[in-house]
């Protein structure tokens, strides 16, 4: 399974400088994602997103507020 659509979710938010704590299922209903990817986004589980192939720079940009620094 490609991580393309997962990264697309993050990229589109990063381009618009939108930050999030988590990204709920309603927001990503239109994307071709696996149940695992949807869960990781909904939980804001950054380690899981990384494991699933999300680009770390996009994780950082979208979930910046979740990092201590």
């Amino acid at each position, binding site marked *: 399974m490609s991580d393309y659509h997962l990264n697309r979710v993050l990229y589109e938010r990063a381009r618009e400088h939108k930050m999030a704590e988590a990204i709920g299922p309603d927001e990503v209903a239109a994307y071709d994602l696996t149940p695992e990817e949807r869960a990781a986004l909904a939980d804001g589980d950054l380690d899981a997103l990384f494991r699933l192939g999300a680009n770390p720079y*996009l994780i950082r*940009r979208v979930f910046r507020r979740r990092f201590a*620094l």
Partner: protein
Amino acid sequence: MTSHAPNMTATPDAAPEQRARFLAGLAEMRRRLLAARPDLVVMFVNDHVQNFFYDNLPAYCVGVGDTHWAPKGAATFLKIPQRQVPGASAWGKALLAEGLEAGFDLAVSHDLEFWDDVSVPAHFLMPEGTLPIVPVLTNCVAPPLPTPKRSWALGGFIRRFIGARPANERVALIATGGISHWIGVPNTGHINPDWDHWVLDTIAEGRGEELAGLTWDQIERDGGNGGQEIRNWIAVLAAVPGVKGEILTYEPVKEWLTGAGAIWLHV
């Protein structure tokens, strides 16, 4: 060559003593850059998934626009006013054409929007915004990445290209990014000063070619995913091989999430 990080300007009150020492190093770099009276500057930088996404992601790209945004959409976050800096379109197009002839399959962009990669160093080194910039971008952020050896070869080509230009043309080379940092990964914020000192000392001693022998795995282990940006430095080192460097500053700045160094090459 200098590190870049958004928090250098986005969080200006953080780590005041380290910030002052690092910025003193950049001020010295700026003084030397102005004294060299360049006509243009080639900036070896990397995208941070703002221009190039996974639908179209070049290994190497030359920016040939008449202007570049540095910054645009990131201005509020970076606390740097939105501005356009001049490009050198004809020079960039010549570099592109000659590069293709020489076997470097460079991509091209006429419209680039920079983040901290160009905007932050340019804010401190070239605040006037008058020196034309030709950006050469390397994919350092979305693996698989071009090899350090290939960046060394590209820098060698750029040396030959500049050598064939009119003798009175004065070209400065700047690389940004690196040194060690871990960004957006599970150990975000880690810095490895031992590796940073090794990189800087290796360059200072004129042995920059050793960096071209690094593998992706070695860099990822010792310099983190952010350390992969060292490719930008490697291209510049290849353009002036064997020259000695002078470390202007080094600070492992926790609040910037990076080992922050700047080094001048005595060409």
